[in-house]
């Protein structure tokens, strides 16, 4: 029985497509909030929610890692791997949309801005995580060690963020984000939250699909 034969999965997929089509339509047609940045300013509505989702997914990898080490049930290993894979796709999107936005906002593609740098380092750690999964050797040990790397990666986040922040004190941490969250006009806040929600629906669909495949592989 394949994944999309189940009714609830088909509904989930349809919901994900519907929400994201509406989301993309809103973002494209929306009047840019900042005239100087032009249409690029709208990338905020996709970049920031993707970044939130990516960090949330990596946080989930850590939680799965902890549960795997405690309960030693293979399902937590599958969940951790699925979260890590989807999280890395999202992180890649963060690292793509970030420079696209940074060019009109700051004038160059890669500012060593704390959040962007933290994302890059986290992304690199997770590339190592997949190398480990792929070439690590004994599968049982690899699962255990991957859980540890997943925990270590997220523990590293506050450390990296703080040190990069102090490392280049002249580099402000996203001054652009603040201008969108204005209590006088709450519409951008709602739009960001909506975008975040639709991304979470997509992410959860991808994760369930991935876990389904991993479990099937196990049963074979």
């Amino acid at each position, binding site marked *: 029985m394949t994944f999309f034969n189940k009714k609830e999965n088909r509904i989930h997929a349809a919901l994900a497509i519907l929400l994201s089509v509406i989301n993309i339509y809103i973002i494209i047609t929306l009047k840019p909030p900042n005239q100087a940045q032009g249409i690029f300013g709208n990338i905020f509505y996709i970049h920031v929610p993707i970044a939130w989702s990516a960090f949330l997914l990596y946080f989930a990898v850590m939680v799965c890692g902890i549960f795997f080490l405690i309960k030693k049930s293979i399902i937590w290993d599958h969940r951790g791997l699925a979260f890590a894979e989807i999280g890395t796709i999202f992180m890649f999107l963060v690292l793509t949309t970030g420079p696209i936005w940074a060019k009109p906002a700051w004038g160059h593609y890669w500012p060593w801005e704390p959040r962007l740098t933290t994302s890059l380092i986290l992304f690199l750690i997770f590339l*190592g995580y997949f*190398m480990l999964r792929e070439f690590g050797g004994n599968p049982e040990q690899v699962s*255990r*060690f991957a859980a540890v790397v997943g925990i*270590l990666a997220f523990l590293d986040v506050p450390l990296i963020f703080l040190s*990069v922040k102090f*490392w280049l004190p002249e580099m402000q941490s996203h001054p652009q984000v603040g201008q969108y969250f204005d209590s006088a006009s709450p519409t951008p806040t709602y739009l960001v939250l909506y975008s975040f929600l639709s991304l979470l629906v997509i992410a959860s669909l991808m994760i369930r699909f991935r876990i389904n495949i991993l479990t099937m592989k196990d049963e074979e």
Partner: protein
Amino acid sequence: MLLHLILKDLKIEMRSKEIIASMFIFGLSVTLIFALAFQVAPVMIHTFAPGLLWVVILFTSVLGLNRLFSLEREEHALWSWVTAPVDRGLVYIAKVISALIFVLISVILFIIPFFIFLNLPTEFSFFQFGLILLLGTGSIGCLISGITLQAGLRDVLIPILLFPSASPVAIAATKCTGFLFENKPLTTWNFWLLILASFFVIFSLFGYLVFNKIVEE
């Protein structure tokens, strides 16, 4: 028991001198390459020196400590101490301490040519420098020990996993060393030292806590 485990590593090293010799020679050759590569602008080297120092320390640590841990993989020596009636966290701590001793000895050995080759001024507090070295190499050592004690892990994976995770340590240690080389008073950069110390505490505690989980079968 802790002492016995550390002495065992030191005794093996005393007899073979393999790890410290290879780390020292490797550090020396990397320093030489740096000195040659940056000779075009001798003024620049003073700004680069703290970064270079930590790059050399990271590279040599990976090289040398990998050997220290692969000793345990030969003939499955790992299992003999996993089954020993001692707390496994203690085994981890012993490995970290012997790793720290090896790194510090080789750093002390190649730091003299490092300063001579790069013509660096040496008017700074050696006590503070020692503290930075201890905390920085300690955090790196904890990370490497945690990563490398995984029996059967391929060698190529160690730097891939280590370098990104060690990047906050590299930033903090480089900053500390930079301020020290510029002879800035401790009060202006003591928070960097505190950050470095907190890395040391976090990474060692993390290693101690998860080590039991990693090796159990």
